[in-house]
């Protein structure tokens, strides 16, 4: 089954990492990702731009466009992984590995109901 691992973290904290700290975290995460990729279990991975660049469309009638992210919380959704796992335990193991590479914040693990790989090149 495919699991989405949604990455939540305090954006202020992530934003105050120095370039070196950021690069160090990305390097550690790459090790975990490479392992999953070699096993053919890694789907799309996304790191989102800061929520300051987010816009929310409220689906009222007519829809309303609001600046900023949907949820006004300290921890924001900053990115996600899609990983193929046999069960929740395996998905939690992957999240633990990722968490060891990048401590702080939280991962929300959500089984995926429908997955379309998409056709975009970028």
């Amino acid at each position: 089954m495919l699991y989405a691992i949604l990455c939540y973290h305090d954006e202020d904290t992530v934003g105050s990492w120095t370039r070196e700290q950021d690069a160090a975290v990305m390097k550690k995460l790459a090790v975990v990702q490479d392992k999953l990729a070699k096993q053919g279990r890694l789907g799309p991975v996304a790191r989102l731009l800061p929520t300051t660049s987010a816009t929310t469309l409220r689906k009222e009638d007519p829809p309303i466009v609001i600046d900023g992210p949907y949820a006004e919380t300290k921890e924001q959704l900053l990115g996600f992984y899609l990983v193929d796992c046999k069960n929740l335990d395996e998905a939690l193991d992957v999240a633990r590995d990722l968490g060891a590479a990048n401590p702080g914040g939280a991962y929300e693990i959500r089984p995926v109901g429908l997955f379309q790989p998409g056709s975009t090149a970028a």
Partner: protein
Amino acid sequence: MTDTAWIDAALTSARPQAVGALLRYFRNLDTAEEAFQNACLRALKSWPQNGPPRNPAAWLIMVGRNVAIDEVRRNRKQEPLPDDEAISDLDDAEDALAERLDGSHYRDDILRLLFICCHPDLPATQQIAMALRIVSGLTVKQIARAFLVSEAAMEQRITRAKARVADADVPFETPGAVERTERLSAVAAMIYLIFNEGYSASGDTAEIRAPLCEEAIRLARLLLRLFQSEPEIMGLTALLLLQHARAAARFDAEGALVLLDDQDRSLWNQKMIAEGLALIDKAMRHRRSGPYQIQAAIAALHARATKPEDTDWTEIDLLYGALEIMQPSPVVTLNRAVAVSKVRGPEAALEMIEPLGQRLSNYFHFFGVRGAFLMQLGRNDEARVAFDRAIALANTSAEAAHIRMHLDRLMRDSQPRGVKAGK
């Protein structure tokens, strides 16, 4: 990243909100800063054992406030210092406090903290130093390094600025809508000052001064998160990102300035460009234009051009035209003239800047640009005079070196053909 590095990052990011709230309680900057320092010391002791609190800023505010209040009581009664456990039961208190820290409240706290730093009585350099010290929490040593002055000199500068602010009336009541807008624009201007202080560095100092640019971007993002629907703050953030994206290409290996046209565009930071473009795109939707948005839109046109020839100079000319109306200044006209020279040729551009001569008689860039137009028109003797004046007015060695390059070229061009061919 190690655990302590994570704590450092959490303390840094919580700082503006925590110091801002403590300032509201104590109405004294020194007390607020000291309270925050004390809270940080306790965090360094407590967090590695108990794990970080869910809301670090709320924790720090609570602890900072309690320590300071206990200190006042202790001084009054001449009692010994209570031990950590006796200070307060943090676990119970934290959630209650966090709930009271509603968005609008801490928004004004942080804005006030930033606003204090840009007090009109303070000269620009002191405003910047204050903001970096108080809001960003850089050490005096770090700030002194970025300003290329001694630590003692910077310490004195900050002390003097603080004294000045303490004498002034600091507005503690919640600002009204008009006042909030005024504060916001003063703070935005100060953030841009911080950025320019770093951006105007010369090649040999660019590396040490880059933190100023990065700090300005961090503050702009902070401000934008507090005021998510302000197109001008989106514009400011976009402008800083798009300019800073070119940092790696702005100087060559010898530290000489590389002009936009000559920069290796593969060195531009595409991630910053993507964020800057997304922000200006978002800002434009509001149809409430402003100087930062226009400047960001100009920077965006440069960022979008993968080759210098692809630059949309016609659009840049139009945007500078709009900026001239909004913010009339000879410097804006001078910048517009560069776009005009690309669209309508150097003659039209020269004509445009002629009337500025008197007001920009001590401005390096005026003579640099004028010399370049004259050189393009083949009026080499006049160009040389302009370049000589530019060199005399250069602010950095990189600027002077760049003009000298033009002069050398003029010299070569004016030499007889035989000599040139033999070279």
